[in-house]
């Protein structure tokens, strides 16, 4: 993960993904890889397709803060970090890099997105409230899922309209979002439900919650996979045609817009000092 690719051309399946791709905004977005992470290449591709530059982050970076310096946002992608053994996200949460991410994300700092396993890691880290338990029917479920964007003011959702319905793949076994009633009321009261499932609730999540944000709107977690709906031909079915759905791209363009809209690329400073 750390070595540079020898191949000049972009090789999406073999080699390093961090250097290739058009960079439109100059924004640099870190994509974290834990042992067992699966969707890191996909998240990096989504960042590139949105116009940003993806930077590979290894979970064991000894100098976490330094690894984050110069980055404008971080994505914790999906997969089965540490096999999802014990509890999904439970072991990954203790990676040295996570401490730095928790620090940098605090107080409305670094934009952080957790997708699926990444969301689970964010709840285990208490950056986001609640937790995930097994799907109601106990089975892994892979399906094209309609979501409603409930909050379009976060760093990761501003390119959507409020109430917009989008289709992105959902795929997980531990996707049932739970929290105590007080927390749920609070989330709803403060408008911190970012995404809700539309149609039949696929996994039993409380109040159809698919994704939430922290109070500052910089940390967002969701179970479905927007990075799998960014490229026509490889996404979910859409009204335009089979596998043509690209609704997920808005998540990644949103953060680029947020970064461009904020005072320059300052995340490095919040993450522990400019180098």
């Amino acid at each position, binding site marked *: 993960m750390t070595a540079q690719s020898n191949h000049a051309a972009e090789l999406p399946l073999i080699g390093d993904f961090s250097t290739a791709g058009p960079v439109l905004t100059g924004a640099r977005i870190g994509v974290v890889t834990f042992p067992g992470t699966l969707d890191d290449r996909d998240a990096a591709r989504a960042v590139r397709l949105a116009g940003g530059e993806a930077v590979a982050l290894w979970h064991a970076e000894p100098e976490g803060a330094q690894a984050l310096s110069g980055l404008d946002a971080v994505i914790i992608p999906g997969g089965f970090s*540490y*096999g999802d*053994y*014990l509890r999904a996200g439970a*072991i990954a949460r*203790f990676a040295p890099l996570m401490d730095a991410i928790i620090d940098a994300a605090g107080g409305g700092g670094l934009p952080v997105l957790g997708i699926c396993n990444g969301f689970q890691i964010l709840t285990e880290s208490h950056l986001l409230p609640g937790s995930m338990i097994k799907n109601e029917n106990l089975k892994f479920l892979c399906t094209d899922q309609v979501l409603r964007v409930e909050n379009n003011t976060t760093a990761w959702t501003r390119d959507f309209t409020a109430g917009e319905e989008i289709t992105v793949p959902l795929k997980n076994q531990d996707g049932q979002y739970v929290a105590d009633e007080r927390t749920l009321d609070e989330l709803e009261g403060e408008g911190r439900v970012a995404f809700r499932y539309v149609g039949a609730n696929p996994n039993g999540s409380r109040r159809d919650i698919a994704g939430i944000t922290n109070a500052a709107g910089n940390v967002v977690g969701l179970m479905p996979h927007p990075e799998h709906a960014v490229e026509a031909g490889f996404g979910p079915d859409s009204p335009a045609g089979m596998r043509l759905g690209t609704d997920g791209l808005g998540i990644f363009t949103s953060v680029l817009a947020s970064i461009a809209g904020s005072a320059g690329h300052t995340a490095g400073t919040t993450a522990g000092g400019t180098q």
Partner: protein
Amino acid sequence: MPTIVVDVMPKPEILDPQGKAIAGALPRLGFTGFAAVRQGRRFELTVEGEVTDEVLAQARQAAEDLLSNPVIEDVVNVTVLAEAAPAGEPVPAEDAEGQNA
């Protein structure tokens, strides 16, 4: 209501990937006193009424037939939980339990 506890563990000779992953994580968190970890399952069966011999026998049978997979797991305990702490109260860990063996 009384509760019967059924404990199921992976057979010792069978690989336990979960236990292995936990054993790997403990020292990274500074817990260095442990040589190995195995993860099993604990079931709490709530009994309607009294724990008769018949009910206990049912629990034992259910442990073998449904709650464990005899190919890879052993039922290591079927015991009646003394009724006391209101359900959900974490039980103080101080009092050691006299575990069967």
